[in-house]
């Protein structure tokens, strides 16, 4: 065992079973360990008590409107791609009480809801998901106003897992968001699984990551091991399920408000909101005010919302976006065009969830391709 | 000596760009008129022999609706042109018009102008061009009024 203290940017190796010690060390430090686990036939995000809770030896087959789990021939810990849930479940809970109020003689008094959120350790954050979190940071931490609740949750210990398998609908390579992460994490793991060895190549990304990793048995990664890790990621990048050409994308879409393709997709879209629920960057919420039957107590709750509902754009008299066409257009334009003007980045990270979980298999890479294909303006613009 | 109305016609935006020769032709059909407050300019089904160019004041174009009384459809104020029924047979007014305030206007003799337009189709084109534009503006405005934009479900 090495005795010199670890530093940021160090790369070490750890035996796969030693991941259990990582879980223990995190728990000892007071973190609640959250990560991928199998429930109801899918890989979801939940509490992990041990490494055994991971989907060991499982993989998934994904395509437009299709998701199936399948047994692997090996016992890889992270041999699957993405499930329907993203880390926004943890960082912005789907339902949150904001405050409650009580009616009294002099009006009403407000009691803010202040249940402190636990310190989370997020295991198995994929590079695209990490990028999605950074994109959301711009919204909740990057402007004049700071969402302090989001800020404290965002302080979670992040253990990235670089992807050793490309999902059927993945296109992180097109979006520049993966399959490996280079910063923004505490630790980043690349799983190496071959006939004689099963280990992780670990990149240290932070001081607290270095401190935690020091508690585990590890060795300085050799050049061969580092190369093996690079090869795993390179191989993943070569097997992306989809591609998206992002050149001049924002302006292409700004030119295409009246493109006939919107009618085409509107004929298929059910406006079911699945895509917004599974998307790791979608952030829309609504506010619900409720009262008890006596009218003495009131509560305000914040809940996830979706631009695909007719209520979303309702102003006295009717909805601004009454047609499915306008709502699909709003979603896609926001994700790939207006987001850029709002937050200086594209809203899509290429995770492919919206393609997988759309009940009718709408594929936004295909929609963009169709719009670009009949765009008459000169191509090759810089975004 | 009768003061010529040519300067008034020449300066008016409605006749902007009209050839000098036509200005004098049109002036031959024009007279200065004045309506006291509440004076009636014309009533529905009266012969439509004139159109008016309001110089100063306000004229309400109204319709008498049984049980509801007189309802104002639109008003014509300073600088606005009123009346197109003189252009087409049977040359009868479709609405009533009443001066809301003391109003000074130029009244143009419809028969006189129609004759001149028949004689010179270029003049006819100039007049019809201007009236068509005025009518489309009026139609647009009326459509917006109809939409009840400020109504409860706007």
């Amino acid at each position, binding site marked *: 065992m090495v005795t010199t203290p670890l530093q940021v940017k160090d790369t070490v190796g750890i035996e796969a079973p030693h991941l259990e010690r990582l879980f223990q060390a995190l728990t000892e430090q007071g973190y609640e360990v959250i990560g991928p686990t199998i429930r109801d036939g899918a890989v979801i995000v939940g509490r992990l008590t041990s490494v055994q809770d991971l989907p060991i030896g499982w993989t998934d087959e994904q395509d437009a409107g299709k998701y199936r789990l399948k047994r692997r021939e090996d016992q890889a810990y992270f041999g699957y791609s993405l499930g329907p849930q993203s880390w926004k479940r943890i960082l912005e809970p789907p339902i949150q009480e904001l405050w409650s109020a009580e009616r009294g003689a002099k009006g009403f008094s407000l009691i803010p809801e202040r249940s402190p959120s636990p310190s989370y350790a997020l295991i198995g954050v994929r590079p695209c998901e990490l990028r999605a979190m950074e994109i959301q940071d711009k919204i909740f931490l990057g402007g004049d106003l700071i969402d302090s609740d989001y800020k404290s949750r965002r302080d979670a210990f992040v253990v990235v897992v670089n992807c050793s398998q490309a999902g059927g609908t993945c296109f992180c390579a097109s979006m520049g968001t993966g399959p490996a992460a280079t910063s923004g994490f505490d630790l980043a793991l690349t799983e190496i699984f071959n006939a004689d060895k099963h280990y992780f190549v670990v990149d240290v990304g932070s001081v607290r990551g270095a401190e935690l990793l020091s508690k585990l048995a590890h060795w300085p990664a050799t050049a061969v091991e580092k190369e093996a890790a690079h090869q795993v990621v390179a191989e993943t990048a070569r097997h992306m399920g989809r591609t998206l050409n992002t050149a001049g994308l924002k302006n292409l879409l700004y030119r295409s408000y009246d493109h006939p393709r919107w009618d085409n997709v509107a004929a298929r879209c059910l406006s079911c909101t699945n895509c917004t629920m599974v998307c790791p960057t979608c952030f829309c919420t609504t*506010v619900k005010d*409720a009262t008890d039957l006596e*009218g003495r107590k009131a509560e305000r709750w914040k809940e996830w919302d979706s631009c695909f509902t007719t209520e979303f754009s309702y102003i006295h008299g009717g909805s601004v976006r009454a047609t499915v066409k306008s709502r699909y257009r709003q979603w896609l334009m926001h994700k790939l065009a207006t987001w850029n003007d*709002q937050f200086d980045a594209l809203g899509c990270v290429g995770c492919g969830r919206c393609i997988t979980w759309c009940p009718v298999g709408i594929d936004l890479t295909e929609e963009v391709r169709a719009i670009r294909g009949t765009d008459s303006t000169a191509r090759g613009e810089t975004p | 000596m009768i003061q010529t109305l040519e300067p008034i016609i020449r300066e008016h935006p409605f006749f902007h760009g009209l050839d000098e020769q036509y200005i004098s032709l049109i002036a031959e059909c024009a007279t200065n008129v004045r309506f006291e407050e509440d004076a009636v300019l014309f009533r529905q089904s009266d012969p439509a022999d004139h159109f008016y160019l309001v110089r100063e004041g306000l004229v309400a174009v109204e319709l008498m609706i049984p049980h509801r009384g007189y309802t104002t459809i639109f008003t014509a104020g300073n600088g606005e042109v009123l009346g197109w029924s003189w252009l087409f047979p049977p040359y009868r007014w479709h609405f009533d018009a009443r001066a809301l305030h003391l109003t000074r206007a130029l009244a143009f003799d419809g028969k006189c102008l129609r004759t001149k337009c028949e004689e010179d189709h270029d003049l006819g084109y100039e007049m019809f061009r201007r009236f068509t534009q005025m009518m489309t503006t009026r139609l*647009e405005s009326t459509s917006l009024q109809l939409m009840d934009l400020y109504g409860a479900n706007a």
Partner: protein
Amino acid sequence: MAPTLEHQVTETLSPQLMLPDLYRIQRLKMETGDTFTLEMIPDNGVSLSFLPGQFNMLYVFGVGEVPISISSDPSASPVIQHTTRVVGTVTKAMGTLKAGDAIGIRGPFGTHWPVERAKDRDVLIVAGGIGLAPLRPALFWLMSHREQYRKIVLLYGTRSPDDILYRHELEHWRGKFDLEIQVTVDRAASTWRGNVGVVSTMIPRAPFDSSNTTAFVCGPEVMMLFTVMELRKRGVTSAHTYLSMERNMKCGIGWCGHCQFGPTFVCKNGPVFCLEQIEPILGKAEI
């Protein structure tokens, strides 16, 4: 209290941002059949400093919250007013509030009518229906700084003579200040001795210098579209034309995503927009 026109950058933490402040209703005044003005003061005595054109989120206990423009004189703070019509459950509940009742307020939010950019220029204000309410604070401002502006013209269109808002105030201003006011209605009985027709038709004849005018426009979107058309015809540039837009709002602080209008958030990039900025999408259906 003199409000400053400078944009304030503050780092504020939630949940404070979603927690209303308690205000007390001083009175409810019926303006027309379905439109009323609520006048209120803060329970804790702290004045709300706001700029003309900004809005608050008003909360009625147990019913809900709605965005409403502030319609009072900024210098009359701590007393503030909101004028609204009954359009849903919350505004209906607001309409039953009495003096002494409590109401919650979050704000002020949004951009303001840039009165500072209209200095030494003619100011043209075009209001349609309840659109006069968000412009009223700007009118107060202009009146109390009258010497900084050249001609001030208000063109106000509404449904009928019975729907004219702030009638006495308009007459007072007309009489007291160098301010040209022209009112028009969509429909009227013959007892109405004023203009009948949509407000945009008054623009061609209105007495302002197109080459040196700043225009503030507020009303139903269709009315604003036609007003913009007439302004363009007169040569008022997009850079000097400002509109107040409206969209569904839930948070008022740019986080819930509801108020998006193209790439803008109406709650923080608006509601007052320079026409130049929104011209590409203004009038496009279902944006």
